[in-house]
Protein backbone atom coordinates (compact mmCIF):
# COMPACT_ATOMS: atom_id res chain seq x y z
CA UNK A 1 0.00 0.00 0.00
CA UNK A 2 1.37 3.38 -0.97
CA UNK A 3 2.29 5.67 1.91
CA UNK A 4 0.78 9.05 2.54
CA UNK A 5 3.10 10.84 4.93
CA UNK A 6 1.58 13.37 7.28
CA UNK A 7 2.25 15.19 10.51
CA UNK A 8 0.31 16.24 13.58
CA UNK A 9 1.35 19.24 15.67
CA UNK A 10 -0.03 19.30 19.21
CA UNK A 11 -0.05 22.95 20.19
CA UNK A 12 -0.89 21.94 23.74
CA UNK A 13 2.43 20.12 23.98
CA UNK A 14 4.56 22.62 22.04
CA UNK A 15 6.68 24.71 24.40
CA UNK A 16 8.33 26.94 21.78
CA UNK A 17 11.79 25.58 22.56
CA UNK A 18 12.73 25.60 18.85
CA UNK A 19 14.62 22.32 19.00
CA UNK A 20 12.84 21.49 15.74
CA UNK A 21 14.22 24.61 14.09
CA UNK A 22 17.86 23.78 14.81
CA UNK A 23 17.36 20.08 14.16
CA UNK A 24 16.01 20.90 10.71
CA UNK A 25 18.93 23.20 9.96
CA UNK A 26 21.38 20.50 11.04
CA UNK A 27 19.73 17.72 9.07
CA UNK A 28 19.00 19.54 5.84
CA UNK A 29 22.14 21.60 5.22
CA UNK A 30 20.15 24.81 5.59
CA UNK A 31 22.77 27.58 5.41
CA UNK A 32 23.09 30.46 7.84
CA UNK A 33 23.13 33.70 5.88
CA UNK A 34 24.69 35.94 8.50
CA UNK A 35 23.51 39.13 10.19
CA UNK A 36 23.71 41.40 7.15
CA UNK A 37 21.57 39.14 4.97
CA UNK A 38 19.22 38.18 7.81
CA UNK A 39 18.56 41.89 8.28
CA UNK A 40 17.34 42.12 4.67
CA UNK A 41 14.96 39.18 4.99
CA UNK A 42 17.09 36.44 3.51
CA UNK A 43 17.23 34.11 6.54
CA UNK A 44 16.12 30.57 5.68
CA UNK A 45 14.08 28.57 8.18
CA UNK A 46 12.32 25.54 6.74
CA UNK A 47 10.75 25.16 10.15
CA UNK A 48 9.78 28.17 12.22
CA UNK A 49 7.92 28.62 15.49
CA UNK A 50 5.45 31.45 15.05
CA UNK A 51 4.44 33.38 18.15
CA UNK A 52 1.38 35.56 18.45
CA UNK A 53 0.63 37.93 21.31
CA UNK A 54 -2.87 38.39 22.67
CA UNK A 55 -4.00 41.03 25.12
CA UNK A 56 -1.95 43.52 27.05
CA UNK A 57 -0.02 43.35 30.31
CA UNK A 58 -0.94 42.00 32.87
CA UNK A 59 -3.27 39.74 30.90
CA UNK A 60 -0.90 39.15 28.01
CA UNK A 61 -0.99 35.68 26.48
CA UNK A 62 1.30 34.11 23.94
CA UNK A 63 0.64 31.36 21.42
CA UNK A 64 3.29 29.27 19.73
CA UNK A 65 2.77 27.58 16.40
CA UNK A 66 5.42 25.58 14.56
CA UNK A 67 5.01 26.22 10.84
CA UNK A 68 6.63 24.10 8.17
CA UNK A 69 5.63 23.12 4.63
CA UNK A 70 2.12 21.78 5.02
CA UNK A 71 2.63 19.31 2.15
CA UNK A 72 -0.79 20.26 0.78
CA UNK A 73 -2.77 17.82 -1.33
CA UNK A 74 -4.08 20.78 -3.33
CA UNK A 75 -0.88 22.78 -3.16
CA UNK A 76 -1.05 26.25 -4.72
CA UNK A 77 2.69 26.13 -5.34
CA UNK A 78 2.46 23.21 -7.75
CA UNK A 79 0.33 24.30 -10.71
CA UNK A 80 2.06 27.67 -11.00
CA UNK A 81 5.56 26.28 -11.48
CA UNK A 82 6.36 26.47 -15.20
CA UNK A 83 8.97 23.69 -15.06
CA UNK A 84 7.45 21.09 -12.69
CA UNK A 85 10.24 21.87 -10.20
CA UNK A 86 7.45 22.00 -7.64
CA UNK A 87 5.12 19.06 -8.11
CA UNK A 88 3.15 16.34 -6.38
CA UNK A 89 4.56 12.85 -5.87
CA UNK A 90 2.63 9.59 -5.73
CA UNK A 91 3.11 9.61 -1.96
CA UNK A 92 1.55 13.06 -1.81
CA UNK A 93 4.71 14.94 -0.98
CA UNK A 94 5.26 18.40 -2.44
CA UNK A 95 8.53 17.75 -4.18
CA UNK A 96 10.92 20.62 -4.79
CA UNK A 97 13.28 19.48 -7.53
CA UNK A 98 16.23 21.84 -7.22
CA UNK A 99 17.88 20.95 -10.49
CA UNK A 100 14.66 21.74 -12.36
CA UNK A 101 14.07 25.07 -10.62
CA UNK A 102 14.77 28.18 -12.68
CA UNK A 103 13.85 30.60 -9.91
CA UNK A 104 10.63 32.26 -11.01
CA UNK A 105 9.72 32.33 -7.29
CA UNK A 106 6.09 32.01 -8.37
CA UNK A 107 5.61 29.06 -6.01
CA UNK A 108 6.71 31.20 -3.07
CA UNK A 109 4.16 33.85 -3.96
CA UNK A 110 1.43 31.28 -4.35
CA UNK A 111 2.19 29.58 -1.03
CA UNK A 112 -0.19 30.99 1.60
CA UNK A 113 2.08 29.80 4.42
CA UNK A 114 5.27 31.51 3.21
CA UNK A 115 7.27 28.39 3.94
CA UNK A 116 9.25 28.56 0.70
CA UNK A 117 12.68 30.17 0.68
CA UNK A 118 14.97 31.40 -2.04
CA UNK A 119 18.73 31.17 -2.36
CA UNK A 120 19.65 34.77 -3.04
CA UNK A 121 23.35 33.89 -3.09
CA UNK A 122 25.35 30.74 -3.12
CA UNK A 123 25.45 29.50 0.46
CA UNK A 124 28.82 29.39 2.19
CA UNK A 125 30.19 27.49 5.15
CA UNK A 126 33.31 28.73 6.87
CA UNK A 127 35.63 25.72 6.87
CA UNK A 128 35.61 23.30 8.56
CA UNK A 129 31.90 23.80 9.37
CA UNK A 130 31.19 22.14 6.03
CA UNK A 131 32.38 18.81 7.43
CA UNK A 132 29.06 18.64 9.26
CA UNK A 133 27.03 18.81 6.04
CA UNK A 134 24.68 15.87 5.60
CA UNK A 135 25.85 13.86 2.57
CA UNK A 136 22.30 12.57 2.06
CA UNK A 137 20.96 16.04 1.33
CA UNK A 138 21.63 18.37 -1.60
CA UNK A 139 23.40 21.67 -1.17
CA UNK A 140 21.21 24.19 -2.91
CA UNK A 141 22.90 26.73 -5.13
CA UNK A 142 21.97 30.31 -5.90
CA UNK A 143 18.69 30.97 -7.68
CA UNK A 144 16.69 27.95 -6.56
CA UNK A 145 13.78 27.71 -4.17
CA UNK A 146 13.88 25.37 -1.21
CA UNK A 147 11.53 24.29 1.56
CA UNK A 148 10.76 21.57 4.07
CA UNK A 149 10.81 18.14 2.41
CA UNK A 150 9.48 16.10 5.35
CA UNK A 151 13.12 14.89 5.39
CA UNK A 152 12.62 13.03 2.12
CA UNK A 153 16.14 11.61 2.43
CA UNK A 154 15.05 9.74 5.54
CA UNK A 155 11.82 8.62 3.90
CA UNK A 156 13.69 7.39 0.85
CA UNK A 157 16.29 5.57 2.95
CA UNK A 158 13.58 3.93 5.08
CA UNK A 159 11.66 2.79 2.02
CA UNK A 160 14.77 1.38 0.34
CA UNK A 161 15.60 -0.45 3.56
CA UNK A 162 12.05 -1.73 3.93
CA UNK A 163 12.18 -3.02 0.37
CA UNK A 164 15.50 -4.73 1.02
CA UNK A 165 14.29 -6.37 4.25
CA UNK A 166 10.90 -6.93 2.69
CA UNK A 167 9.23 -5.61 5.85
CA UNK A 168 6.83 -2.66 6.16
CA UNK A 169 7.98 0.55 7.85
CA UNK A 170 6.66 0.34 11.39
CA UNK A 171 4.88 3.41 12.71
CA UNK A 172 7.22 5.68 14.68
CA UNK A 173 10.43 4.28 13.20
CA UNK A 174 10.62 6.92 10.49
CA UNK A 175 10.89 10.46 11.84
CA UNK A 176 11.91 13.76 10.24
CA UNK A 177 14.62 15.60 12.17
CA UNK A 178 12.15 18.01 13.79
CA UNK A 179 9.91 15.22 15.04
CA UNK A 180 12.83 13.20 16.34
CA UNK A 181 14.21 16.06 18.43
CA UNK A 182 10.95 17.55 19.75
CA UNK A 183 11.35 17.22 23.56
CA UNK A 184 7.64 17.51 24.34
CA UNK A 185 6.59 15.16 21.52
CA UNK A 186 4.45 17.94 20.09
CA UNK A 187 5.29 16.73 16.58
CA UNK A 188 4.13 13.33 15.38
CA UNK A 189 4.90 11.94 11.94
CA UNK A 190 3.59 8.90 10.15
CA UNK A 191 1.54 7.29 7.42
CA UNK A 192 -1.96 8.71 7.00
CA UNK A 193 -2.94 5.70 4.92
CA UNK A 194 -2.45 3.56 8.01
CA UNK A 195 -5.60 4.41 9.99
CA UNK A 196 -4.02 3.03 13.17
CA UNK A 197 -0.83 5.08 13.01
CA UNK A 198 -0.35 7.65 15.75
CA UNK A 199 -0.56 10.51 13.27
CA UNK A 200 -3.83 9.22 11.83
CA UNK A 201 -5.38 8.95 15.27
CA UNK A 202 -4.25 12.47 16.19
CA UNK A 203 -5.44 13.84 12.86
CA UNK A 204 -8.92 12.58 13.73
CA UNK A 205 -8.82 14.37 17.09
CA UNK A 206 -11.62 16.78 17.91
CA UNK A 207 -8.93 19.40 18.63
CA UNK A 208 -7.58 19.00 15.13
CA UNK A 209 -7.72 21.61 12.39
CA UNK A 210 -5.76 22.61 9.32
CA UNK A 211 -3.78 25.81 9.06
CA UNK A 212 -5.69 28.21 6.78
CA UNK A 213 -7.89 25.22 6.01
CA UNK A 214 -10.56 27.43 4.42
CA UNK A 215 -8.21 28.13 1.53
CA UNK A 216 -8.82 24.57 0.41
CA UNK A 217 -5.16 23.65 0.25
CA UNK A 218 -5.83 20.34 2.03
CA UNK A 219 -2.65 20.27 4.12
CA UNK A 220 -1.24 16.99 5.42
CA UNK A 221 -0.24 18.71 8.65
CA UNK A 222 -2.91 18.79 11.36
CA UNK A 223 -2.77 21.27 14.24
CA UNK A 224 -4.26 20.18 17.56
CA UNK A 225 -5.58 23.19 19.39
CA UNK A 226 -4.16 24.27 22.73
CA UNK A 227 -6.57 23.63 25.58
CA UNK A 228 -6.79 25.92 28.55
CA UNK A 229 -8.91 26.46 31.61
CA UNK A 230 -8.00 30.11 31.76
Amino acid sequence: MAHRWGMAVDLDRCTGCEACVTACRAENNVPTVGAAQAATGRAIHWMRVERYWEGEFPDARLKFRPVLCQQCDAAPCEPVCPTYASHHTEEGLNAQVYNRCIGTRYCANACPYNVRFFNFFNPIWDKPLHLQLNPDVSIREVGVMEKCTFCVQRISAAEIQAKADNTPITDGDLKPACVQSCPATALVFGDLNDSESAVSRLSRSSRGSKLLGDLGTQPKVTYLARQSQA
Partner: protein
Amino acid sequence: MHTDSYGRFLRWAAPLVVALAAVSSCRLAEEPPAASVFTPAHRTIGSAVNDFLNIRPAPAQPFPFPHKAHLAKGIMCTEYCHESAVKGPIAGLPSVKTCMICHESIATDRPLIKTVADYQKRGIDIPWQRVYGYASESHVRFNHAPHLRAKVDCVTCHGNIGQQTVAERNVDLKMGFCVNCHKSKQAPNECLTCHF
Protein backbone atom coordinates in the same frame (compact mmCIF):
# COMPACT_ATOMS: atom_id res chain seq x y z
CA MET B 1 27.09 62.62 -47.51
CA HIS B 2 25.05 60.64 -45.07
CA THR B 3 27.11 57.48 -45.64
CA ASP B 4 30.26 59.01 -44.17
CA SER B 5 28.14 60.59 -41.46
CA TYR B 6 27.21 57.02 -40.46
CA GLY B 7 30.90 56.26 -40.41
CA ARG B 8 31.49 59.18 -38.11
CA PHE B 9 28.71 57.94 -35.85
CA LEU B 10 30.26 54.49 -35.64
CA ARG B 11 33.74 55.87 -34.95
CA TRP B 12 32.17 57.97 -32.21
CA ALA B 13 30.15 55.18 -30.67
CA ALA B 14 32.75 52.41 -30.84
CA PRO B 15 34.90 53.56 -27.85
CA LEU B 16 31.76 53.75 -25.73
CA VAL B 17 30.84 50.15 -26.47
CA VAL B 18 34.41 48.98 -25.86
CA ALA B 19 34.52 50.83 -22.54
CA LEU B 20 31.29 49.20 -21.36
CA ALA B 21 32.54 45.78 -22.44
CA ALA B 22 35.71 46.40 -20.43
CA VAL B 23 33.72 47.42 -17.35
CA SER B 24 31.56 44.34 -17.51
CA SER B 25 34.50 41.97 -18.06
CA CYS B 26 36.49 43.36 -15.12
CA ARG B 27 33.44 42.93 -12.93
CA LEU B 28 33.44 39.30 -14.05
CA ALA B 29 37.13 38.99 -13.31
CA GLU B 30 36.55 39.15 -9.57
CA GLU B 31 38.50 36.73 -7.44
CA PRO B 32 36.96 33.30 -6.81
CA PRO B 33 35.60 32.56 -3.30
CA ALA B 34 38.20 32.42 -0.57
CA ALA B 35 39.75 29.02 0.10
CA SER B 36 38.67 29.36 3.72
CA VAL B 37 35.03 28.80 2.80
CA PHE B 38 33.08 25.94 1.31
CA THR B 39 30.53 26.93 -1.30
CA PRO B 40 28.64 25.33 -4.19
CA ALA B 41 29.70 28.28 -6.34
CA HIS B 42 31.93 27.65 -9.32
CA ARG B 43 35.50 28.80 -8.95
CA THR B 44 35.52 30.33 -12.41
CA ILE B 45 33.09 31.32 -15.12
CA GLY B 46 34.80 28.70 -17.27
CA SER B 47 33.92 25.82 -14.97
CA ALA B 48 30.38 27.14 -14.78
CA VAL B 49 30.09 27.11 -18.56
CA ASN B 50 31.62 23.62 -18.76
CA ASP B 51 29.14 22.24 -16.28
CA PHE B 52 26.33 24.02 -18.08
CA LEU B 53 27.36 22.37 -21.33
CA ASN B 54 28.11 19.10 -19.50
CA ILE B 55 31.75 19.23 -20.61
CA ARG B 56 33.93 17.35 -18.11
CA PRO B 57 37.65 16.67 -18.32
CA ALA B 58 38.64 13.03 -18.72
CA PRO B 59 39.93 11.69 -15.40
CA ALA B 60 43.72 11.47 -15.29
CA GLN B 61 44.73 8.38 -13.30
CA PRO B 62 48.11 8.26 -11.50
CA PHE B 63 48.94 4.97 -13.27
CA PRO B 64 46.99 2.42 -15.28
CA PHE B 65 44.93 -0.11 -13.39
CA PRO B 66 44.16 -3.30 -15.35
CA HIS B 67 40.57 -4.05 -14.36
CA LYS B 68 40.67 -6.83 -16.94
CA ALA B 69 43.56 -8.66 -15.30
CA HIS B 70 41.92 -8.55 -11.88
CA LEU B 71 38.58 -9.71 -13.17
CA ALA B 72 40.33 -12.51 -15.00
CA LYS B 73 41.72 -13.63 -11.64
CA GLY B 74 38.10 -13.87 -10.52
CA ILE B 75 38.25 -10.82 -8.31
CA MET B 76 34.72 -9.49 -8.53
CA CYS B 77 34.19 -5.72 -8.37
CA THR B 78 31.74 -5.68 -5.48
CA GLU B 79 33.40 -8.44 -3.52
CA TYR B 80 36.82 -7.01 -2.83
CA CYS B 81 37.48 -3.51 -4.08
CA HIS B 82 34.09 -1.80 -4.35
CA GLU B 83 32.37 -3.90 -1.72
CA SER B 84 30.52 -0.97 -0.16
CA ALA B 85 28.41 -0.74 -3.30
CA VAL B 86 26.30 -3.62 -2.04
CA LYS B 87 25.97 -2.09 1.42
CA GLY B 88 25.15 1.48 0.59
CA PRO B 89 24.90 4.33 -1.87
CA ILE B 90 28.60 4.74 -2.66
CA ALA B 91 30.82 2.19 -4.39
CA GLY B 92 33.93 3.97 -3.23
CA LEU B 93 37.51 3.84 -4.47
CA PRO B 94 39.61 1.24 -2.65
CA SER B 95 42.43 2.60 -0.53
CA VAL B 96 45.99 1.37 -1.01
CA LYS B 97 45.41 -0.90 2.00
CA THR B 98 42.93 -2.90 -0.06
CA CYS B 99 45.49 -3.37 -2.83
CA MET B 100 48.13 -4.52 -0.39
CA ILE B 101 45.89 -7.18 1.12
CA CYS B 102 46.79 -9.27 -1.92
CA HIS B 103 49.87 -7.54 -3.22
CA GLU B 104 51.70 -8.01 0.05
CA SER B 105 52.56 -11.35 -1.50
CA ILE B 106 51.35 -11.37 -5.09
CA ALA B 107 53.45 -9.99 -7.96
CA THR B 108 55.52 -7.92 -5.59
CA ASP B 109 58.34 -7.66 -8.10
CA ARG B 110 56.35 -5.79 -10.73
CA PRO B 111 57.29 -2.11 -10.98
CA LEU B 112 53.69 -0.89 -10.65
CA ILE B 113 53.13 -3.03 -7.58
CA LYS B 114 56.33 -1.56 -6.17
CA THR B 115 54.85 1.92 -6.64
CA VAL B 116 51.71 0.77 -4.84
CA ALA B 117 53.76 -0.70 -2.00
CA ASP B 118 55.67 2.57 -1.88
CA TYR B 119 52.43 4.53 -1.47
CA GLN B 120 51.59 2.18 1.39
CA LYS B 121 54.98 2.83 2.99
CA ARG B 122 54.59 6.59 2.74
CA GLY B 123 51.13 6.29 4.26
CA ILE B 124 49.74 8.15 1.29
CA ASP B 125 46.76 6.88 -0.66
CA ILE B 126 46.78 6.41 -4.42
CA PRO B 127 45.17 9.49 -5.97
CA TRP B 128 42.66 7.59 -8.09
CA GLN B 129 40.29 9.92 -9.89
CA ARG B 130 36.58 9.26 -9.97
CA VAL B 131 35.45 8.29 -13.44
CA TYR B 132 31.70 8.44 -13.02
CA GLY B 133 29.74 10.89 -10.96
CA TYR B 134 27.12 13.58 -11.28
CA ALA B 135 27.64 17.31 -11.42
CA SER B 136 26.20 18.35 -8.12
CA GLU B 137 23.85 20.91 -9.65
CA SER B 138 22.08 17.91 -11.13
CA HIS B 139 21.25 17.02 -7.51
CA VAL B 140 21.25 13.27 -8.18
CA ARG B 141 21.32 11.08 -5.08
CA PHE B 142 22.29 7.78 -6.64
CA ASN B 143 22.27 4.68 -4.45
CA HIS B 144 24.19 1.62 -5.64
CA ALA B 145 22.76 -0.97 -3.25
CA PRO B 146 19.16 -1.09 -4.48
CA HIS B 147 20.36 -1.23 -8.07
CA LEU B 148 22.55 -4.22 -7.32
CA ARG B 149 19.70 -5.85 -5.42
CA ALA B 150 17.61 -5.31 -8.54
CA LYS B 151 20.27 -7.30 -10.42
CA VAL B 152 21.43 -4.35 -12.51
CA ASP B 153 24.80 -5.40 -13.88
CA CYS B 154 27.80 -3.12 -13.38
CA VAL B 155 28.37 -2.86 -17.12
CA THR B 156 24.92 -1.34 -17.63
CA CYS B 157 26.14 1.95 -16.26
CA HIS B 158 29.90 1.50 -16.27
CA GLY B 159 30.28 0.02 -19.73
CA ASN B 160 33.15 -2.28 -20.56
CA ILE B 161 35.25 -0.87 -17.71
CA GLY B 162 36.13 -4.46 -16.98
CA GLN B 163 38.02 -4.56 -20.26
CA GLN B 164 39.86 -1.33 -19.67
CA THR B 165 43.32 -0.86 -18.30
CA VAL B 166 42.81 2.84 -17.61
CA ALA B 167 39.23 3.46 -16.55
CA GLU B 168 37.41 5.78 -18.93
CA ARG B 169 33.94 7.18 -18.97
CA ASN B 170 32.27 5.41 -21.87
CA VAL B 171 28.66 5.55 -20.78
CA ASP B 172 27.15 9.02 -20.66
CA LEU B 173 24.96 8.95 -17.57
CA LYS B 174 22.43 11.46 -18.86
CA MET B 175 19.01 11.60 -17.27
CA GLY B 176 17.47 10.04 -20.36
CA PHE B 177 19.67 7.00 -19.79
CA CYS B 178 18.36 6.52 -16.26
CA VAL B 179 14.76 7.31 -17.15
CA ASN B 180 14.63 4.81 -20.00
CA CYS B 181 16.03 2.03 -17.84
CA HIS B 182 13.65 2.83 -15.00
CA LYS B 183 10.78 2.82 -17.48
CA SER B 184 11.75 -0.52 -18.95
CA LYS B 185 12.11 -2.08 -15.48
CA GLN B 186 8.94 -0.45 -14.09
CA ALA B 187 11.14 1.18 -11.45
CA PRO B 188 9.74 4.37 -9.93
CA ASN B 189 10.21 7.31 -12.26
CA GLU B 190 9.18 9.98 -9.81
CA CYS B 191 11.59 12.96 -9.64
CA LEU B 192 12.09 12.41 -5.92
CA THR B 193 13.40 8.91 -6.62
CA CYS B 194 16.74 10.46 -7.52
CA HIS B 195 16.54 14.23 -7.01
CA PHE B 196 16.41 15.54 -3.43
